[in-house]
């Protein structure tokens, strides 16, 4: 059991444990009532299939393929979203120019986007393109509101002391925007996993979780579909955890002025 620094943390662990246990119990009861693996396999069935599938080369190839697509889509939406959102936050006319596009992207159904992308891109890039279009508006909005969140009085102070623009950006604007950016990036990461796997289900690229999921569905292997879905959930959770660790490391970079003498 993990160690927690205080009793509140320990109490939260037990609440989390209780929630998970209740969910598994409800699933087990539902599977029992359904009475067919084809309709709803039990958690234990899924675990057994997961253990079997995870020992195959196909599993690891699918994990690697989907993971790379998610990273590609996430990195591009972060870069594009932060660049456009920062420009939109600093210059109102840029925001006015981009906002119809961003609103349109936000309102477009993901399936329509994937189907259209299938006309334009090779099957391996369809999920990436669709995920970028879904995650970009999230990052744009986070960056734009983050840039506007910088305290006006601190900006005035920085201008008065003629603090160089790049230092203002690194030490004032980015730390002020950071809570918005981190929350946006976390949402974008989850979105990328969902959209990439959905895109793979439809576009059927080689070495993909979505493709494996679709193949299992065609073979009426409901338990395998569950196993692939759980793999996706676990990978999404793991990447969000890794992202959290990375986000904590940012403090060491942004929360100190360069040039400070060694202590």
């Amino acid at each position: 059991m993990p160690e927690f620094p205080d009793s509140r943390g320990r109490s939260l662990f037990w609440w989390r444990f209780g929630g998970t246990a209740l969910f598994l119990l409800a699933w087990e009861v539902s599977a029992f009532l359904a009475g067919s693996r084809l309709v709803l396999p039990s958690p234990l069935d899924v675990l057994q299939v997961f253990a079997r599938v995870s020992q195959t080369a196909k599993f690891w190839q699918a994990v690697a393929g989907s993971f790379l697509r998610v990273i590609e889509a996430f990195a591009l939406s972060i870069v594009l979203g932060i660049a456009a959102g920062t420009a939109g936050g600093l210059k109102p006319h840029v925001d006015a120019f981009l906002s119809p596009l961003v609103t349109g992207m936000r309102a477009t159904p993901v399936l329509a986007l994937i189907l259209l992308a299938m006309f334009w891109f090779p099957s391996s890039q369809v999920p990436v393109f669709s995920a970028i279009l879904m995650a970009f508006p999230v990052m744009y909005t986070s960056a734009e509101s983050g840039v506007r969140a910088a305290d006006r009085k601190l900006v005035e102070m920085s201008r008065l002391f003629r603090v160089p623009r790049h230092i203002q950006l690194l030490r004032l604007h980015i730390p002020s925007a950071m809570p918005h950016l981190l929350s946006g990036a976390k949402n974008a990461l989850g979105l990328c996993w969902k959209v990439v796997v959905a895109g793979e289900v439809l576009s059927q690229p080689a070495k993909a979780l979505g493709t494996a999921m679709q193949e299992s569905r065609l073979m009426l292997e409901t338990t395998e579909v569950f196993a692939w879905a759980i793999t996706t959930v676990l990978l999404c959770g793991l990447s969000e955890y890794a992202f959290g660790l990375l986000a904590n490391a940012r403090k060491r970079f942004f929360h100190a002025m360069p040039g400070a003498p060694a202590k």
Partner: protein
Amino acid sequence: MSFSIRSLTKRFDSLLVLDQLSFSFEPSSITAILGPSGCGKTTLLNIVAGMIPTDSGDIELSGQLSCSYCFQEPRLLDWLTAEDNVRYALSGLADRGRMEKRIERFLREAGLESFRAYYPSQLSGGMQKRLALARAFAYPAELLLLDEAFSAVDLRQKRELMNAFLNLWKEEKPTVFMVTHDIHDVLLLADKVVVLGPRPAKVRGIIDIPILQSQRRLADEQMSHIEQKLYELIDMPAS
């Protein structure tokens, strides 16, 4: 050559804040603006700093003066330590060695030497104020603007900060423009006092204090006389 402010007027929408202010002050002198709360003293300082525009009137300063400002509120970056807050303000200076020496000196003079690695949220309100003052003193400027700089600190620290300020002023002779509502601060520090009335602020009177700061004794007859005149200008009986 003297600096001057001529017929300066400022409105915020329909609210007239400064009404035709005119006075002059000498380079390398300390000019105090004395007036009741809310009369527009900070607005005047912000206009002199170039942070807000005037509606009409002129400010004549010689060329583009470098400017340092101790704001009424500390305006610190919560995610930087005390010394990094000062370092941030000085980051435009080319001479790193000089910058570090000034940070060291003014943190020490503000009594924050042992709190240099603390974050603003770990400092008391008075310490945050002293840090903002250390930052304003450490930034080498020809024009130093102080907005209620010595308020919100206890008496002993106030005296130490005033000594630190006077040492800095004697060494580097910046032109100082300070805003306060404390007559004793004015009597101890200023070469010239401009008294403003309540909003919309007009100049009620200008008093020169022709005594070196180091030789001032509040109980002296000349200082008492000046104090009396200041109280008359702000419509208050001397205590």
